[in-house]
Structures are given as C-alpha cells and as structure tokens.
C-alpha cells in the first residue's frame, strides 16, 4: 500500500507538539484535573497557598496529597488488576482489616511506642493483606469465578473479619511511630506521600523495566492467546491480586495511622469505587489490556481534589454526592472519544450542511 508510508509520515513529523500532547493518554486526565484546580483558584485564592508551619508544609494542596495517598495506593493496585480484565471489590475491606490488625496488635502491647512492636504489627498486617490478595487471586485464576463475584465474597466477609479483629470497637492507639505513617511528615511533606512514591516507583519498575507489564497487558488483552504464547496467565493473575492486596494493606495503615484508630466499619468504605473511578479516569480500560499507572495517580488526585473542593466550597451535605456525581459524569463524558466526536460532528454538520451538499453533487 503506497498510502501507508505517506500516512505515517504525516502523523509522525508534521504534527505539532500540541497535537501530539493532545493525543497523549495523560492529556485529558491532566487537563481536567488542572481545570478543577483552576476552579479552586478562582473560588478561593488561598487554595494554592502553602506555608511552612511547625517544620512542615501546610495547605490545601498538601491535604490533597495526604488524604489522597490511600486512594492513590489502592488505585495503583487496582490498575494492575483491571489490566488483567479483573476487578477487586474487596480493597475497602482489606484496608479495614489491615488497619484493624495493626491497631489491635499495637494496643495490646505494653509499650505502644516501641518501634519493634510497631514494625512487627505493620509486617503482620501487610502479610495478612497479601494473603487476602492471594485468596482473591486463587478464586479468580484457579476456580475461574468471575472477578467481580470472587472479590465480592471478601468485600462482604472482610468487614466482618475486621469487626472480629477489633471486637466491634474502635481501637484507639497512642503510638507515635504508628501515627507517623499516616500523619507524620518527612522533609516537610506528608510521610504517606513517600509511601505512595515508593509503591508507585516499585510498580512502575516492575511493570515497565521487567517483562511483567507485557505479561499483564497480554493476559488482559487475550488470556487464551497469552497462554498459548507461553505466559503463565494464572500466575500473573495471582500476582496482581496479591499486589493489589498489598497496596490496600499499606493504604489501611495510612488511614488508621492518620486518625490513630482503627474503625472496622468505616475505614476504607467505598474506596473500591473511588479507586475504580481513578483507574478509568486515568485512561485504563475496564476491559483490560493497556494500563497507565501515571494516569491512575492523576485520576486519584482529581477525585481527592474534588472531595476537598466540595468541603471547602461549602456544598450542603445533602447534595454533596449529587455534585460529585455530576462532576464525575462530566469528566467521563469529556474523556470519552466517541462523545467528543459526536459533539464535534454535530457542530460541524450544523455549520456546513449546504457546503457538503454542493461538493457531493459536483
């Protein structure tokens, strides 16, 4: 085909930087996030004010990073699961369980501030989280239950497990090292954000520098073709669910550390939905395949920005969820290529109907 080389030529070097940026998968998530931030700038200029207070940075943007950290973590794990055509509804429960176990262990200790105790509790909580991820992974890959059902089991049962661990109580801890995970600051920034950075870096390294990313995308695109190409699809699935469990576990530690207490009922409630939304906003398709970790981070930040915006703008609590839903709907519509095309073609046909007819008959 002679047109080929020509076509490629035009899409390659002729296109300007702007149209290349426009085509990048991060363009819409970033643009929408920036739009949301600009709205805040317009609404309350102090939104962007960051000051140093008691040795750490202080301001709405820092809050977004800090409170958004658990969501970002969960969403990173969710991204890898969704990339394999799966979904993990149980992350909220795992968040609650991890926090509950860690707080329970610390509150039983004689010296809650002992670093060894805290580390031990953290390790145990994370081990349990990974084990719960393994359970999900086994259900999905070995027994072949659909992911949405398989993880629904733990989503429902997990709250019960968290309650069992805490005995139905809110467990309060007074452990400085544990609180540091959720509320401490390092080099002026919330410590939790460093955890996000570490997990993000590790997952990016594992998926982009090793072959794991190719395996995940391949399995997500076409599990059977991947199996025939020699990829151990089941192993890949188990790994991503375990990783998702781990991410949820870390998120649970941050959430419970932030308020120095574990709440089996409410910790991480509905976080799975926000996480799925973040993944989708970030450009990863729910049908699996290509995934975008950076996009997910932007998506999570956008959701947290929206939440914080709603609090600071003073939306009445009765309509908070409606406002959130409307913004999310708008975001999804703007991101949808076919919707954009429909709008544009509408607009075009309205403008040039006569002209088109003329060329046709000519």
């Amino acid at each position, binding site marked *: 085909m002679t047109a080929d080389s020509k076509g490629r030529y035009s899409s390659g070097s002729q296109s300007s930087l702007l149209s290349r940026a426009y085509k990048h998968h991060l363009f819409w998530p970033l643009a929408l996030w920036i739009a949301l931030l600009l709205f805040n700038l317009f609404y309350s200029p102090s939104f962007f004010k960051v000051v140093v207070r008691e040795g750490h940075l202080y301001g709405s943007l820092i809050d977004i990073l800090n409170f958004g950290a658990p969501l970002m973590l969960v969403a990173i794990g969710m991204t890898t699961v969704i990339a394999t055509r799966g979904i993990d509804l149980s992350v909220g429960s795992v968040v609650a369980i991890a926090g509950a176990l860690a707080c329970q262990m610390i509150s039983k200790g004689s010296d809650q501030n002992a670093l060894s105790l805290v580390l031990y509790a953290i390790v145990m909580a994370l081990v349990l989280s990974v084990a719960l991820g393994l359970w999900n992974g086994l259900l999905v890959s070995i027994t072949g*239950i659909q992911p949405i059902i398989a993880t629904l089991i733990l989503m429902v*049962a997990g709250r019960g497990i968290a309650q069992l661990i805490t005995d139905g109580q809110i467990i309060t801890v007074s452990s400085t090292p544990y609180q540091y995970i959720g509320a401490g600051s390092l080099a002026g920034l919330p410590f939790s954000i460093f955890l996000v950075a570490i997990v993000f870096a590790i997952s990016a390294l594992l998926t982009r520098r090793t072959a794991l990313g190719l395996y995940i995308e391949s399995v997500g695109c076409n599990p059977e073709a991947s199996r025939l190409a020699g990829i151990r699809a089941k192993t890949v699935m188990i790994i991503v669910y375990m990783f998702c469990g781990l991410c949820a576990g870390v998120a649970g530690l941050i959430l419970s550390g932030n*308020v120095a207490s574990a709440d*089996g009922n409410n910790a991480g409630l509905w976080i799975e939905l926000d996480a799925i939304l973040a993944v989708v906003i970030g450009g990863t398709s729910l049908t699996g395949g290509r995934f975008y970790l950076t996009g997910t981070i932007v998506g999570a930040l956008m959701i947290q920005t929206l939440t914080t915006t709603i*609090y600071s703008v*003073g939306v009445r*609590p009765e309509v*908070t969820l409606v406002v959130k839903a409307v913004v999310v709907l708008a975001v999804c519509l703007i991101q949808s290529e076919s919707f954009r095309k429909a709008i544009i073609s509408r607009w075009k046909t309205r403008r040039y109907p006569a002209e088109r007819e003329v060329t046709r008959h000519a």
Partner: protein
Amino acid sequence: MKRRTKMWGLLTLTLLMLVATACGKSDDKKTSGSASDISLGFAQVGAESGWRTANTNSIKDSAAEAGFDLKFSDAQQKQENQIKAIRTFIQQKVDVIAFSPVVESGWDTVLKEAKDAGIPVILTDRAVDSKDESLYVTFIGSDFVEEGKKAGQWLADQYKDASADVNIVELQGTTGSAPAIDRKAGFEDAIKGNSHLKIIASQTGDFTRAKGKEVMQAFLKANPKIDVLYAHNDDMALGAIQAIEAAGLKPGIDIKIISVDAVHDGVQAASEGKINFIVECNPLLGPQLMDAVRDVVAGKTLEKRIVTKEGTFTSEEAKAALPDRKY
C-alpha cells in the same frame, strides 16, 4: 471445563454461607441459654462508635440480668439489614421487638407487619418519622434536640457579652440521621438569640474520626478565622482535634470545641482541656428498656416518650468523671 469451574465457584459460595449461618446459630444459642418466657428481638444499628458499643453492652448485660431471651442483630448501618432482621424476629414470633433505626424514614411497612403480627415495637435511642404513632409502643432515648439546645445554650452563655462575630463550624452526623438533624436544629435554636454567633460552615463527617479530621482540615484552609467547633459526636471532635493540632493551633483554646456523647475518649480529651464542653448522650438505656419490655408484656400502658437521664461535662467535671467512665 468451564462448567466445572463454575460448579466449584458455587460450591465455595455455598460452603461459605453454611459457615456463616453456622456461626450465627451458635450465637443464638449462647443468648438463649437462660430459661425465660420473654423473648426480645433487638436490631442494633451497628458498631460504628464507642458509644454504640456501650449501648450494645448495656442492652446485652441487662437482658441477661433480667433473664430475657435476647435475639441480637447487627445491621452494620444498613437499613435493609435492619428491616430483614425485624422480619426475621416477626417470623420467630418474639414477644417484643426493639431497635435503633439507622435512618428516620421508611419504616412504615415493616412496622405494620409487626403490628399485624401482634408484636409490640419499642424504639431505642433514635426515633422514626412515621405519622402513625400506633406503630410503636414507646420511644426510649435521648432527646437529641435537647442535646443540641444544651450545647447551644452553653455557647450562648460563654459569648453573651461578645461584641464581635463568633465564627462557628459544624461537623454534622450522617446526613439524614435523627441525631444529625435534631442536634443541628436544637443548637441553631439555642444560639439564634445572639446575632454574633454565626455558623460559617457545616458539613457531614459521618460520625467518624477519619471524616471528622478530613473535613476539619478543609474547614481550616477555607476559613481563616474559626472560633468554635460544634461536633455532633465525640469521634468527629477527636478527629478534628488532630486536624487543629496539625494546623498549629491549640484545641480548646484557639478553637473552642463542643461535642455530644461523652464516651471515654471524649471525656478524656475534655479532661485534658481539648474539648471545652460535652453534652452527655447516655447509652446505658438497657435497664430502662428491660423495664419497658416487662411492662409491655404485662399489659401496662407506657408513656409514648421515655427520656434517658443525661448530664453535661465541662473540662473540670470531665476530670472528675473520667475514672468512672467505662465506655
């Protein structure tokens, strides 16, 4: 191949359910151990706070003491669970049903079913908004409007000589719940006499610490001058205290804090001066409930409204009361 895996899935599910129901059964047996002719079905909201746990324990303990056969169900804060539990109680033909409604509305159908089955219903702690008062025998619990009024009254007294505006932020309970609506209404009613007292921001904190902290942080960024925080429960106040401290302010001094409930952690914060005033919301209504149950079964008529005895704590009083606070 595919069919077999599906079968496996089904099997796993069934097994899980079996385990779950088995657990439930063993629970029932524990409570039905004591010999008694009166059976009481109680549908609790959940275990969302220390207050609720104390409430649950009080009911369980006093039922055991009275020798009642208590069937206890935890709705995990979902109305549909609670309706399901009440229907189960009706099927089990318990003598009396008592419950703390998760939300105010939507109870008419299931309460009618209980009435048709001839089972009296007692509401505890939270009311329902049903127009048909015959659907329940009595409502035992705190008067949330009164609680709000007490909180507002204290604030009005504190600032009765204020010449400048006092900026108040409010952390509401779960949107739509009776305590959130009433505590807000009572508070607003009590402070409306003083035009300097102004609520500048009000947002739900879902009665949880995490939300309380998150919302308070946003309040602090959006409003440069906050004088008073009114939280609908202690947990949200405790979360907000962390936010205030993170902002480099002193809770109780830079921002006065009023809260409702008086659970142990709250009283402790009050004793440390971080909460200035707590209105008690007494969870120990077990004995009063058991008395009412006994009276209903005996055929006595009850007052439509039984109010629990409640006090208030300032920081000083909190210090004295702290050692006795069990919940």
